[in-house]
């Protein structure tokens, strides 16, 4: 009887999902209410979680609660500790949620809301969540080993080395692109710049407070930090209105880029408790709070999506980034549907804290679905803006024109009416000098979020909510920069230690400073090239980041497939091979087009050749000759980086296929590094 009621309930959820998708499909280009999108997403994610993930857990992984997890066997009170399922779910989600699912869907909305929506829905269920879940499972069965270690043990030594180098490269590109998002959000904005600058003394105050005044009181300290952040937000408005102070905090792109580069160096070299850790606590709580607020705001406000389901830019000539819907929609959305970086978290802290094997189901699979839901909310926030406004904010001046009138005319000619007066009014409401050409996704997302939040708290506070959203995005992006630079420094010192053991000591000051400078210079260079790029930087750097991130996902899926084959689960290998094939198709097509496309806006080499021809023909003014040479070099560098990433992953794929073929033919022994079965004696209810 109970089973029958459940069947009826799940059938009703499936029918409701179909009705919601039907409403979206039958809108015929008319604005559609976000309720249908949110409801369809919730239903599809629930079905994927209940049926597909459970099928994988039961048939492929053979999850077994009688088996002791590493948290139980290796319990040490530090890294290995059995943790309550829902607490670990929140912990894991807080670790995987970053700016990717917020910025990616916002940028991909240039194709219309429909492609991004469908990819997030089905990509997360069939790809991203499968990757996270399988990697968590594999690491959990191997004492919490990292992805690189699993690649080395299960595929080959080459696989491990490739994973390590790919991670380092991705880190450099990731740090550059997220820093560019912050630079573009703060450019010419004294309010935003002051608020973000104020987070540095706030974090240092918190660090000292925790270390010396009230040791151990992290929640108390974080609450004080949040209050200080809100004061900084109000202070930012005062700074913006003061002619003297606003001139101090009104910075251009290059100045902001150098500020972030210098900041990155100090964050990497200073003691971790002083700046990085307190900022991380603060950003985690603010991030979770804002995501909950956004969900609540969308549920209450139910905004209408004014952006059409499909725009003409599916043809590859979009103003925000060049490239057709396939493969660039999938590359751009990145972490909202599949993120290779998640595999590092799934094979990091989380597998060491799982109390029961079946807890991996909600933690590994469920958390990624929640991340997909964050992507859907970002898409709704962006698509709720008037299309003309969305394109005016996100299109670089190099495409739409340098003056407000020219930009408005260009965007209106695309069929998305907008006027300079309308944009000026909106900028005034948001407390900004201008909103034209604020590329990078963060400002348009902040604008969308501000409109949703202001409908809950009165229309007069758009400026407050806009800067609140900018502060929220910049706060956790800076935490990524702090932590990423530090990790890059460790990796580099580790490599240097192989040459001379003394160089590998993480406490050796010349090594700390030298390695920090090299890492900061590496991502700082890509950031700088993004800032001076006439096409806005996002056009070249975001796809490069998307390609790198998805290629890491391909490595993670190769590892999971190899392990399934060693578990004699060949008949189910399609579960990881299908998303792997899709990732290979999208990333290699995108990579190939970014390097070799003859279209200068799309292909790195084509743009370099076009600029070289202009220089040779004397069409470049003498004053711009040096900058143009730099852009030519940068395009060639991007092509080389993209090529290296593709080559590294090709090596892993060939290596994996060689191992798979041996395993399937029986010529390679199915030797797995899985830890032997130990019966569990843990009382989970006591956790």
């Amino acid at each position, binding site marked *: 009887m109970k089973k029958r009621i459940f069947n009826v309930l799940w059938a009703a959820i499936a029918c409701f999902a179909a009705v919601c998708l039907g409403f979206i499909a039958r809108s015929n280009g008319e604005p559609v209410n976000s309720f249908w999108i949110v409801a369809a997403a919730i239903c599809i994610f629930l079905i994927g979680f209940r049926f597909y993930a459970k099928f994988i857990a039961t048939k492929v992984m053979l999850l077994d609660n009688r088996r002791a997890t590493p948290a139980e066997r290796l319990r040490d009170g530090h890294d290995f500790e059995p943790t309550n399922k829902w607490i670990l779910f929140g*912990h894991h989600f807080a670790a995987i949620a970053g700016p990717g699912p917020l910025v990616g869907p916002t940028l991909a909305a240039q194709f219309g809301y429909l492609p991004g929506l469908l990819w997030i829905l089905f990509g997360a269920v069939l790809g991203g969540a499968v990757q996270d879940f399988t990697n968590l499972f594999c690491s959990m069965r191997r004492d919490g080993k990292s992805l690189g270690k699993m690649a080395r043990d299960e595929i080959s030594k080459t696989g491990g080395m490739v994973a390590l180098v790919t991670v380092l490269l991705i880190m450099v590109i990731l740090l550059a692109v997220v820093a560019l998002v912050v630079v573009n959000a703060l450019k010419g904005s004294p309010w935003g710049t002051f608020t973000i600058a104020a987070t540095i003394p706030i974090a240092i105050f918190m660090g000292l407070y925790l270390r010396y005044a009230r040791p151990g009181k992290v929640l108390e300290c974080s609450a004080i930090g949040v209050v200080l952040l809100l004061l900084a937000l109000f202070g930012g408005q005062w700074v913006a209105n003061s002619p003297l102070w606003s001139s101090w905090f009104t910075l251009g792109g290059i100045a902001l880029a150098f500020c972030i580069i210098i900041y990155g160096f100090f964050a990497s070299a200073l003691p971790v*408790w002083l700046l990085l850790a307190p900022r991380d606590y603060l950003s985690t709580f603010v991030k979770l709070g804002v995501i909950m607020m956004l969900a609540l705001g969308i549920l209450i406000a139910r905004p209408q999506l004014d952006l059409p389901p499909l725009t003409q830019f599916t043809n590859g000539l979009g103003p925000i980034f060049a490239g057709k819907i396939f493969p660039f929609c999938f590359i751009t959305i990145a972490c909202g549907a599949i*993120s290779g970086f998640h595999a590092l978290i799934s094979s990091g*802290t989380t597998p060491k804290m799982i109390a029961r094997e079946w807890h991996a189901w909600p933690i590994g699979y469920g958390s990624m679905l929640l991340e997909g839901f964050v992507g859907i909310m970002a898409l709704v926030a962006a698509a709720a803006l008037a299309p003309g406004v969305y394109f005016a904010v996100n299109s670089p001046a190099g495409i739409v024109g340098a003056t407000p009138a020219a930009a408005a005319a260009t965007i209106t000619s695309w069929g998305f009416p907008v006027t300079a007066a309308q944009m000026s009014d909106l900028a005034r409401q948001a407390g900004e000098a201008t909103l034209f050409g604020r590329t990078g996704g963060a400002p348009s997302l902040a604008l969308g979020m501000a409109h949703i939040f202001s409908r809950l708290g009165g229309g007069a506070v758009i400026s407050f909510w806009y800067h609140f959203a900018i502060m929220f995005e910049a706060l*956790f992006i800076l935490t990524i920069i702090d932590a990423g630079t*530090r990790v890059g420094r460790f990796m580099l010192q580790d490599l240097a230690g192989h040459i001379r053991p003394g160089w590998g000591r993480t406490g050796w000051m010349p090594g700390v400073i030298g390695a920090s400078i090299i890492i900061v210079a590496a991502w700082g260079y890509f950031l700088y090239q993004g800032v001076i790029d006439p096409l806005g930087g996002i056009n070249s750097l975001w796809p490069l980041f998307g390609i790198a991130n998805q290629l890491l996902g391909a490595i993670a899926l190769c590892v999971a497939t190899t392990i399934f084959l060693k578990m004699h689960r060949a008949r189910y290998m399609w579960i990881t091979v299908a998303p792997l094939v899709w990732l290979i198709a999208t990333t290699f097509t995108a990579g190939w087009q970014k390097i070799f496309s003859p279209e200068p806006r799309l292909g790195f080499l084509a743009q370099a050749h076009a600029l070289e021809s202009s220089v040779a023909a004397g069409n470049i003014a003498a004053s711009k000759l040096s900058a143009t040479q730099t852009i030519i070099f940068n395009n060639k560098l991007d092509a080389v980086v993209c090529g290296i990433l593709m080559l590294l992953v090709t090596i892993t794929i060939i290596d994996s296929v060689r191992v798979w073929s041996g395993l399937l033919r029986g010529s390679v022994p199915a030797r797995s590094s899985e830890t032997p079965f130990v019966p569990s004696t843990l009382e989970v209810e006591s956790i």
Partner: protein
Amino acid sequence: MTVLRKLFRLAAALARELADESAYRRHLAHCSRTHSAAEWRRFMDAKLKSKYQQGKCC
């Protein structure tokens, strides 16, 4: 009411876990030590060293 209370307790426990306060409590229990400023600093130095061996997710 019970559901709300349970939810609140869960949220508070999650906040303590994210703030590393629970980890500190576990550390004290595991090593049979009592809280002090020096102990907290020792714990945090070890905890943060392992925590930031890994980058933040994108």
